[in-house]
């Protein structure tokens, strides 16, 4: 699956890298390093991906191809 992190919406709340650290990391200012990017993850990371999507208070994380 393909994860997208919207840089316009990301405000550095930090939930993604807290709940799914295997997929997301914090930069020095508390924003997610993956902000503004799209990247693929394997099936084994599906739970972590969906948890991050559901945990972002800004709704900045989405799965490409899913509403």
């Amino acid at each position, binding site marked *: 699956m393909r994860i997208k992190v919207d840089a316009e*919406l990301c*405000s*550095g*709340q*930090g*939930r993604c890298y*807290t*709940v799914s650290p295997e997929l997301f990391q*914090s930069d*020095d*200012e*508390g*924003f997610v390093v993956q902000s503004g990017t799209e990247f693929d993850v394997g099936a084994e990371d599906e739970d972590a991906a969906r*948890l991050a999507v*559901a*945990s*972002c*208070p*800004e*709704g900045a994380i989405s799965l490409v191809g899913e509403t």
Partner: protein
Amino acid sequence: MTNTERTATGGDGRGPGGCPVVNVDIGLPGPILSHFEEWDELREQYPAFWTELYGGYWVVTRFDAIRHALQEPATFSNASTIVSDPDPAYTFIPTFLDPPEHGKYRTLYNARFSPGMVTRVTPAAREAANRYIDAFIDDGGCEFMSAFADPFPADVFLNAVNLPAADTPKFVRWVHAVFGGLSGQEQESGLDAQGEMHDYFKAMFDQRRRAPEDPEVDILTYLLSATVDGEPIPEADLLNMAVVLVLAGLDTTKSQLGYNFHHLATHPEDRARLVADPSLMPAAIEELLRVHAFVPPARKLKQDVEYEGCPMRAGQMVLMPLWSATRDPRAFDDAATVQIDRSPNRHIAFGAGPHRCAGAHLARRELLVAMEEWHRRIPDYRIEPGVDITEHGWQCGPDNLPLVWS
């Protein structure tokens, strides 16, 4: 004072554009949790309404609409965030700024209130928590708000900004004076306190000019060496920014500690689960933030907008209590109930959009350290029987929380 006595409902469409008028006074005190519970009812009745109090302003109640507004500074501006004062004579920096100006200052806070800084100050925070607990643990009880919730955040904040922990009592007093003022009491001493804070930080900045410290750990040195649009920050703005940090970071953490310990004192089953398995504490903290999201941000309309069925006009103010958003059943199942292992939990207790609380990472760590250390040493406690627990309005928080243990 019951909820129905202090809420005048007026769903008769006599507000602008035929919208409802509800003259609920968010500034009134009440029994603890009463503001949250009152708005649980209001939110279900009205997605938005006009209030004639405090000069008149709009109110939006539901999660999606509140979050969207906070993410749209072009329409919902921070030019004022105080409903009774749409044209303030002062500009809190960066609170009263919009993008792109806002980001130039905000980035300085992000760099210093980062997860890295939080990790660095955690040992000192743990030491502080234990120091305050040491003072009352053998007494079998304490007034939690004054004995712990007041000084602990101030102590951690001072350490984080590399100022003397011995100044904690000064900061506790200033926060009392200012936040009493916001609720309508002690208005004059609030202004005096801000003046005293100005003087205090002026002296500290002067000292750092003479003897700069490491800007990686000393925020005052960092701000002195920072630039905005290529220019150093004028002294008046530096003092402004320092006072904003104090006003933003202390009363808030204090109130959240109060609500957390009130919940755990009154829900022994939740407390027992955390004592048995402290790894549940981070999730519990998120849930306690969600259920008690006590900050009511306001925005100033920068342009006309039809929002939640109401004709909002440029220049008008709109209030969006975060607790109304975070307890919205449209966003959270069983929204009014604390489920300490709730997951996922995408609450907006720290706000949303560009003005998302810059201190969120530090706040979360303070709450975690306080909960860990307290429950390690005082796992069983309850509220002193026969005492009414009350909360103040606006930026709500418990006024008192007498705890007892054996």
